[in-house]
């Protein structure tokens, strides 16, 4: 599978330039790779290692710590059913069973057509809207088993394509710092003085 495309390499370079040290871009670049391919491939990890000047093993070592990165193909839609306390108290198991039945797979599995992967997830920060689930990190609040079946059928038919991008895509809006406005990242080793407004203030008034 693929290294990052040229378009993604330019995005990657813009991201790297925001940090005083390139390695800080490791997690954002893993997200970028996952957005490109739907999961994180070995080739992409090698490419990221080149871009930020670390070993591929360091990329893998950091990446595998984090739940969201998948190192083998997952479905186009990753369904995460929350199973932590408030959701558990209000019927999370019923949602999981409905999803398992509708998809014909068990928790942790992926459908044969590669459309769906089903996971139990930890607290999704929507506890008053329990039980809840996320599809590719988009919420479904106060879900019922009937709604879960409907949701799966809507995803299958493509009716939710506008709302739910394929797995890997998180924010569809990227930060962009305009060249004429950005201050720029400086290596901390090159700075010893207080920032300008602090020095100015000690000489009387910041503005």
């Amino acid at each position, binding site marked *: 599978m693929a290294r990052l495309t040229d378009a993604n390499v330019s995005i990657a370079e813009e991201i790297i330039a925001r940090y005083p040290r390139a390695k800080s871009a490791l997690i954002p670049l893993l997200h970028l790779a996952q957005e490109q391919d739907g999961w994180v491939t070995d080739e992409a990890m090698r490419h990221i290692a080149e871009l930020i000047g670390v070993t591929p093993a360091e990329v893998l070592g950091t990446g595998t710590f984090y739940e969201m990165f998948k190192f083998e193909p997952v479905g186009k839609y990753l369904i995460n059913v929350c199973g*932590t*306390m408030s959701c558990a108290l209000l019927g999370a198991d019923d949602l999981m069973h409905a999803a398992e039945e509708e998809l014909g797979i068990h928790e942790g599995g992926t459908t044969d057509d590669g459309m769906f992967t089903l996971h139990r997830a930890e*607290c999704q920060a929507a506890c008053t809207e329990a039980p809840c689930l996320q599809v*590719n990190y988009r919420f479904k609040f106060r879900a019922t088993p009937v709604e879960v079946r409907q949701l799966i059928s809507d995803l299958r038919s493509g009716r939710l394509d506008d709302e739910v991008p394929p797995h890997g895509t998180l*924010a569809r809006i990227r930060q962009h710092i*305009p060249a004429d406005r950005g*201050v720029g990242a400086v290596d901390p080793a090159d700075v010893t003085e207080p920032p300008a407004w602090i020095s100015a203030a000690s000489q009387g008034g910041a503005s």
Partner: protein
Amino acid sequence: MTSFPWAPGFIEGNRPQIVTSRFQYEDSFTLERYLATGGYEGLRSALARSPQDMHEEVRSSTLLGRGGAGFPAGVKWGLTPEGVYPRYLVVNGDESEPGTYKDRLLMERDPHQLIEGCLIACYAAGLSRCFLYIRGEMALAQERVAAALNDAYAAGYIGKNILGSAFSIDIVLHWGAGAYVVGEETALIESLEGNRGMPRLKPPYFPAAIGLYGQPTIVNNVETLSNLPFIATKGAAEYTAIGTESSPGTRMVAVSGHVRRPGVYEIINGTTTFRDLLYGEEFCQGIRDGNDLKAFVPGGGSAPWFLPDQLDLPFEGRLVGAAGSMLGSGAIMVMDSTTDIPSAALTLTKFYAHESCGKCVPCREGGTWLMRILDRVVEGHGTTDDLDLLLEVGESICPGDMPHAASADLQLEATPFPYKMTTICFVGPSAYVPVHSALTLFRSEFEARVAPSRSRTRIPVTAVGGDS
């Protein structure tokens, strides 16, 4: 008492609003709405005075950190060593404590308020770059904050020479990727450096001394920073007029579980009681289906449990601490009389066992032990020995007295917060807290579940070498 379809979960009341004042507007996240409702006035007011003045204003507001520990923000900013630069601001938007969500709403509904708070903090504390770390699973919050940052840069509120002053700063949006422990501030810094998110050894106790890239670093929570525009605009006096002297202002509190009207409420700090929250007409309106209250978790999944005995306590850190728990991140989870207590404890212990980063042995091993033992008890395969074993494993994570609530029925006095711990961070103890609370307050439910122990020699967990 109003809720808004665009802010699911949030319920507005007839109370002072500091951080949720714009939630009533459907377009609250846009720059236009923000500017039309007093936005960026706090930044102007900050820039009109010296950084030291602004810092002093925040110090005298006694604004307490909203991430969990409740440390005063103005004091925290002052812990940076003198003369060491550059200094950084890292915004903790990695909200993942079970039961908690307020930062997500604040980022989705009012991202400019957060951005303005970051700018005020950087100006006042001389921090020269800001990293805004948002939990990976919050796609909408990331989109809203990214759009707000782009608009604020274009309008001259972020970047070089902000509003024509000497104040220049970048705010960099950074996404997490799913790891609860990263909410711990030194783990957050590790993650931001591109590493596995494992907490750093202490001391230093605060990254204010040695943090990101080894530089002085302030880590503040999203809700904490969202309070700053109000303080900068209206002043510390108006802020401290709300709430109590030791807990001024308001707090965002999420109440979930078996209540009639679960929701996120902005409450007056220090005076609102748990009874108000659970039973009040303007809050949760009582327990569902007219059931009785069995227990509640007062401050996020890491907090020791409370009983109906504690309902009249106000939402005030010191009082709640003395009563055996903590306010933590402002999250209450309610269990009614139908709740199976061992299973409820298991969902939380599973969470913390799963989220252990693996750095400290008592947490890595102990959390998993607790989860497995509790699981077999819940499944009906446990013995009475297992109940003692749970406490014994817990003792290896939290040696000595564990905080717990008082119970009139059990004739039990409270043991105050905090606990002692053999781990670097609170994840390990948090796996034990629900087990300990449930076993201390509801032991009979466990005993009804287990078979008598067969007589056999059990090897104590803590025994090493010796005469065995």
